[in-house]
């Protein structure tokens, strides 16, 4: 995915800093450009600054320094009610003393829209989330999923061009969450709105987003498409945070062609793809995705001994925990297909992977 240029950006964070106490920075020099119609997710552990960024965008927090622009216009000093940004809150924040219809009508009412026009818009927004029959219910009478839809409809009813979502699916059970992910994604495609989505659930981020910004420690660690993020993590944090990941610690021995030679903890030398590692002698961490490792495969540039420590049956596949190069948490996924080799605990076997799939990153 190409980098969004400043002049094309719909939402732009320009060297934004945020500190609550004047001592520590929660957000450090954030630069982020989001194109119109894009679905960008801010992903990160709690305390990484992602929600703070969203709150600054919505206008509930002020940036300590730097500038936030919306459609080229600085919005630092615009109060939240004049920003015209839709928002879905973590707990939905549906007004408990109003019916669903009144909740949806509220943003139109404060904009001075006439009664008939309001009713029409409310009806359309409710139909959009298939909740037309619930117009006279109170939020407390709705299930979590239904409240979620109403919150979505309320954020969209006044037709904002930018919608923020703060972990909107956090309170739903797994099945409903996955269903709503698709619905939100489809709504985004149909309406052409720009969405900034905050979550700590990496699966959700990968499913829904055009691009994902991985936050840690107030800094964007990597901003990339879901595919790049998963397959080409640029540092150890991203590799760790997104998906499963086998780690092998070692030191850089030297470079050979476009590969790096790494001496592992048990003394063996392995070849890896140098993504973010230093000069010979410096520490590094090799990251290999479990599904890029073969058991008993044909000889490869990286083939090594392994001992089966644990097998976990997961239906469609087996999770196999191995000891590889002294690492006892080396995971390999074995498809549960006919004719695949049956492993037993304690068995010695061989594993191999491509040097390109072993990414040498910065040490944790």
């Amino acid at each position, binding site marked *: 995915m190409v980098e969004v240029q400043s002049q094309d950006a719909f939402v732009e964070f320009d060297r934004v800093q945020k500190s609550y106490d004047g001592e520590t920075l929660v957000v450090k020099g954030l630069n982020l450009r989001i194109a119109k119609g894009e679905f960008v997710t801010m992903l990160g552990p709690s305390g990484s600054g992602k929600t703070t960024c969203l709150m600054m965008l*919505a*206008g*509930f927090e002020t940036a300590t320094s730097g500038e936030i622009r919306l459609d080229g216009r600085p919005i630092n000093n615009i*109060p*939240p*009610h*004049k*920003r*015209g*940004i*839709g*928002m879905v*809150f*973590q*707990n939905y*924040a549906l*007004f*408990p*003393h109003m019916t669903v219809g009144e909740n949806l009508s*509220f*943003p139109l009412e*404060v*904009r001075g829209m006439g009664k008939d026009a309001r009713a029409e818009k409310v009806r359309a927004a409710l139909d959009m989330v298939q909740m037309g029959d619930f117009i006279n219910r109170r939020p407390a009478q709705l299930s979590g999923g239904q409240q979620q839809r109403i919150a979505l409809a*309320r954020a969209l009813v*006044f037709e904002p061009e930018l919608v923020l979502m703060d972990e909107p699916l956090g309170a739903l059970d797994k099945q409903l969450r996955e269903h709503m992910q698709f619905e939100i994604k489809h709504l985004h495609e149909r309406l052409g709105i720009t969405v900034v989505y905050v979550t700590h659930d990496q699966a959700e981020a990968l499913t829904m987003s055009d691009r994902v910004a991985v936050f840690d420690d107030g800094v964007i660690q990597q901003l990339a498409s879901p595919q790049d993020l998963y397959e080409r993590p640029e540092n150890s944090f991203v590799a760790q945070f997104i998906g499963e990941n086998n780690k092998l610690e070692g030191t850089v021995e030297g470079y050979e062609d476009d590969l790096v030679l790494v001496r592992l903890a048990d003394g063996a030398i392995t070849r890896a793809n140098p993504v973010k590692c230093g000069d010979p002698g410096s520490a590094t961490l090799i990251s290999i995705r479990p599904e890029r490792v073969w058991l008993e495969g044909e000889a490869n540039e990286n083939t090594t001994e392994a001992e089966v420590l644990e097998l976990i049956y997961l239906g469609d596949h087996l999770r196999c925990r191995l000891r590889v190069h002294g690492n006892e948490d080396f995971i390999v996924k074995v498809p549960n297909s006919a004719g695949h080799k049956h492993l037993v605990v304690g068995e010695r076997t061989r594993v191999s992977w491509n040097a390109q799939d072993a990414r040498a990153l910065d040490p944790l």
Partner: protein
Amino acid sequence: MTKELPADPHVALVATAGGVEDGPLTMADGTSLKSAMARAQFRARLRAFLLVLPLLAFVVITFIMPIGELLKRSVYSPNFHDNMPNLVAWFAEHPPGTEPDESAYAALVADLRLLKKTKKAGLVGTRVNYELPGSRSLFTKGARKAKKLEPPFREALLKLDPKWGDPALWQVMRGAASPYTMNFYLAALDLKRDPSGKIVPVDENRRIYKMLFGRTLALSLLITFLTLILAYPIAHLLATLPLRKSNLLMILVLLPFWTSLLVRTTSWMVLLQSQGVINDILVALGVISDDGRIQMMYNKIGTVVAMTHILLPFMVLPLYSVMRTINPSYVRAARNLGATSWTAFRRIYFPQTVPGIGAGALLVFILAVGYYITPALVGGSDGTLISNLIAFHIQKSLNWSLAAALAALLLTGILILYWLYDKLVGIDNLKLG
């Protein structure tokens, strides 16, 4: 086929598996499962009842019975009836409006002689005195002299004191002849019976209770309103500040609770009196002259200021408990949806605090209506409330029946307001904590 038993922990019963398909469920010994469960649940209920029994007995003996007894006094006053049997009999034989003849006076003298013997002349006199002030001595003197009276008794008594011929006295005695009377309620509403038995207002210069009821109501409403205005921002601050700061603030709110009511009231006296702190400061600053000191005590201002301060925590606490549960994201959502901060407050925040306002207002109002110490100390004559009059009748004039009638009217008034509140706001919406 087995049917599931209700998940009641008290019912450790086993239904017969494979019992009659659609028939009633039975126990292993053939008795009905339903009655066995009812038995088990009855035992559980009985145990719960026995646990609360001591408290129930305590409340009944120390609270409900004395109050019932006092309320009974407002309609039941048997002193005259019990000690004047002859006159009571005469009243029973002659319909109202009959002129008291010689037989009536004979009965009266017979009763007066009886009073001398039983030494109850004071009690009877007091009873009549409630309704016709100045008649107590009539009875004590009459009883003392009754022995020497000779027929015809009418002339003899009138010679002793011409007041005995007063039709008003006979009207009062006829009323007192029945142990049950509504006259105390009439008195509590500034009404009385004229000699013909019609209900008429008392003389203008004796009307006091209605005005006091009105003042009590008005001042209580004013105090409720003032506490609301003062408590709302504080409660909001308490609910939104970080825990450590809000705890400190909460201690400041609760501090008055830990000080004696008397101390708080007297400290207001120190502040408010005409030689007090506030007046001294104003004089020192030159805002008012030394002769123009503001009278802030022994009038309504004193009562309102001191009571507002004392009742403030009762408004803060229910408001706080409701506001604490209001998620700040509601107001954020409203702001985000385009509402100004004022609209967000008016349309979103305020409606959600109504249960707390209702609870606080009801609490403060009911406390204020029955407040006694503070108005007694700082109220003077202008700032006293109905409860001060009730206390006066219980402690000084010893007219407990009138005090009981006043208290009963106050209680009725509060119950009516409570009922109105239920109609308008709904008791279910009340949140005390």
